[in-house]
């Protein structure tokens, strides 16, 4: 009778000690996502487009996200931000002027509890966007 009781005691004591013992990522790293390869990430998430038509580019971003099965959750034309979501995945795209004749487009996605860091995912997004912008340019002419 004594041995099972002692074993139970050890179990309870250890579970109390172990509670909250998970090795945690430091708070600054959790908030700022620091410690990542920011340059590599930035280059895969960013593209320059030779156009000054910011509103047109934003419309193309919206169309591309919808083609990729995202539901648009937020769009602000003045700020140049479009957000989309589909089950288990979220994406934010910003379109900012770079100089007078170029636009810089940055996309970042999140899947589950982690940022999407596969270059292929962004390559596919930008390929679809390039296609949409090319088509749009021809339609506008």
């Amino acid at each position, binding site marked *: 009778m004594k041995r099972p009781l002692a074993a139970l005691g050890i179990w309870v004591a250890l579970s109390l000690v*172990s*509670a909250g013992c998970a090795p945690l990522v430091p708070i600054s790293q959790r908030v*700022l996502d620091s410690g990542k390869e920011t340059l590599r990430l930035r280059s895969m998430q960013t593209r320059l487009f030779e156009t000054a038509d910011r509103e047109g580019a934003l419309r193309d971003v919206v169309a591309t996200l919808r083609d990729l099965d995202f539901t648009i959750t937020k769009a602000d034309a003045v*700020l140049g931000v479009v957000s989309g979501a589909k089950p288990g995945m979220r994406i934010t795209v910003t379109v900012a002027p770079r100089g007078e004749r170029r636009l810089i487009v940055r996309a970042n996605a999140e899947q589950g*509890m982690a940022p999407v860091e596969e270059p292929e995912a962004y390559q596919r997004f930008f390929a679809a966007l390039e296609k949409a912008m090319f088509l749009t340019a021809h339609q506008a002419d």
Partner: protein
Amino acid sequence: MTRLAFPLALLLLVAGCVATAPRLMEPPAGKGMRPEHQTRLYETPDEGRVLLACATLLQAMGFQVDEAASALGVLSASKTRDANRLTPGEQTAVNVVSLGLLLGGYTAPLALLLMPAGTPQPRNIAAGITTRKVGQGGSRVSVGVVFKENSAEIADPAVYREFFEQLSKALFLEVHDS
């Protein structure tokens, strides 16, 4: 008598609500003004540019924009992260080892020690940014930011210092790029 019990219970419930209602709109204890480390002034009249720099910086930090009302200087973003330092692969390995220890009988308490390391620690991290023109003729832009984790405000000034340092850099670079 039993017919009275239900309305009486309801009455007590409502009375409880009334007692707590006035506290709803009070600022948190010991907190009046927004702490200094959560705001910064930028020497530019271009509020839109500052807000856009905030949006792209939040993107670089892995946030997803949830709300953007540029006319009012409001930007909200969030992200979900696993606070467990171990990668998902390492967590699985820990769980396999834990299971082995659990099946070992007397080694089971050791499994309990290991288990937290193999469990994901999901955290919802939110960023709330507000901008406003200040100074004579709106020559400067005030930026306020609050970070929250699982709805609790993050108080560590170092996090805010790093955010504003990166924002200053982004604005400086932008000015010199265009």
